[in-house]
């Protein structure tokens, strides 16, 4: 079969092989190994799990499959709590990004044309600087003897320092801050394309600006809102660095739990089981939503 470019079978094979082989070896196979280890029994040796199969003294093949690691996940409510808490915290952070990002994107889209590029660049610039450093910057601000408390004490708003660092609130602030550009950029792309004559028509018909916003602008910007929210929610929900640095010991998030099982408890089988559970309960639904959205967009064109 020849395609439009007339590349032959061999040419196509040679073009496709490197990325295909790379992804199969370094992306697909690792997940099969994770699945395998999630079914293995933990052991004290190195590696800290028992082989799934081996030959016993009589030379017969013996399997050591266990669902014990998954039983641990479902038996201990810590894991369910961490899973739900991740969704809750990422959801609130997404809402925070929307509340700050929507007016910002709207203002940029309605700014004079000559300014828009620079204003957008100012939003995107923090994304290109180190993520870790931007999270770190908040520690100095939020801790009890930090900038924010010093300011509030000085203003007389509070009489003793607030405990913000090491709470869920700090994690939400850090996530909103880190992922704000991901919300503003798609919203801007959407709002900038909007047909302003629709708003003029609404105004001519006697519609007040706020009502026109709710009835016209908001529904029209829905695709931008959905795109931005997914871009924020997806990385936020599996986040490790932000809850680790800004959250406290009780800030349970699923990414942090996996990390702790692997590095602190050296329990590779349970860490693998957490990964598989995350894949099934978190990544798979997200991919299904993404696919449905892409298909809907293509159909709408």
């Amino acid at each position: 079969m020849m395609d439009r470019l007339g590349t032959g079978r061999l040419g196509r094979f040679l073009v496709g092989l490197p990325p295909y082989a790379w992804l199969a070896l370094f992306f697909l196979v690792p997940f099969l190994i994770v699945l395998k280890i999630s079914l293995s029994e933990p052991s004290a040796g190195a590696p800290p799990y028992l082989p799934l199969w081996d030959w016993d003294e009589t030379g017969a093949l013996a399997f050591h499959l266990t669902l014990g690691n998954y039983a641990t996940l479902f038996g201990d409510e810590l894991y369910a709590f961490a899973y739900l808490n991740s969704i809750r915290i990422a959801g609130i952070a997404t809402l925070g990004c929307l509340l700050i990002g929507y007016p910002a994107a709207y203002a940029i889209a309605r700014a004079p044309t000559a300014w828009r590029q620079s204003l957008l660049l100012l939003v995107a610039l923090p994304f290109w600087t180190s993520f870790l450093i931007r999270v770190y910057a908040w520690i100095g601000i939020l801790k009890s003897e930090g900038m924010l408390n010093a300011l509030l004490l000085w203003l007389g708003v509070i009489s003793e320092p607030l405990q913000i660092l090491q709470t869920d609130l700090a994690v939400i602030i850090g996530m909103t801050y880190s992922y704000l550009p991901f919300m503003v950029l798609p919203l801007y792309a959407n709002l900038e394309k909007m047909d302003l004559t629709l708003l003029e028509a609404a105004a001519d018909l006697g519609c007040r600006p706020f009502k026109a916003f709710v009835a016209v602008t908001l529904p029209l910007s829905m695709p931008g809102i959905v795109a931005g929210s997914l871009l924020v929610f997806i990385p936020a929900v599996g986040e490790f660095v932000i809850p680790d640095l800004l959250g406290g010991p009780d800030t349970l998030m699923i990414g942090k739990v996996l990390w702790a099982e692997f590095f602190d408890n050296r329990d590779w089988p349970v860490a693998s089981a957490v990964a598989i559970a995350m894949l099934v309960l978190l990544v798979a639904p997200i991919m299904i939503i993404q696919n449905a959205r892409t298909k809907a967009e293509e159909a709408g064109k």
Partner: protein
Amino acid sequence: MILYGLLILAYAFLYVPIVVMIVFSFNASRLVTVWGGFSTKWYGELLHDEKVLDAAWLSLKVAMTSATVSTVLGTLAAVVLVRFTRFFGRTLFTGMVTAPLVMPEVITGLALLLLFVAMEAVVGWPSGRSFTTIVIAHTTFSLSFVTVVVRSRLSQMDASLEEAAMDLGARPLKVFLAITLPLIAPALLAGWLLAFTLSIDDVVISAFVSGPGATPLPIVIFSKVRLGVSPEINALATLVVTVVAVAMAIAGRVALKREQPRPQ
């Protein structure tokens, strides 16, 4: 008016933390919230910290290598997705290209480490955690981002140019090198920069696949940060932010000069 007020607040939210950090990197006092006079001593201390310098050098090498490899592989993957409409295992391939975009980093990191451990046990390679394992891991997740960037450029491209070259008798490889590649070059550059940034900034995946012999800069910063805020990290952070801002300004100028009206 209210709208512009909100916009200014959003910018303040984005930039105040960075500015505070930069200001306190020049603080003479070790206390982070008390101003003890202007000093550049933390920068001096930083430049004598062998561990930090080694880590920065390693991160730079890893980022350059993995950005280059992922740009090559990501471009090939984009060509496959845009031009080859039907082939064996297309659904699997599309899935493997898009999945890293939504995959939590802890899972990717864990999976790759377990692969390296298993490979070492079976074929004896790679031995331990090293430059190579970090490059492989970073390439794997940034490849998808390059593919997204190149793919959109490739699908917007005017196909008649390629067809004209074909009609004039150019072979597919020649067409790709002489026509397609120059046309998608801006996307390759953008993809490379994105992959470079993702690599040099990565903490989670590196934490899994790096070892005592090969520690990239974010891991060094991360372990220092876990111990608390210090003016030395502020100084390091300021340097990183400055380098990035300067690089962005240069890249922005180059892009503006080259900018051609593109069909949306």
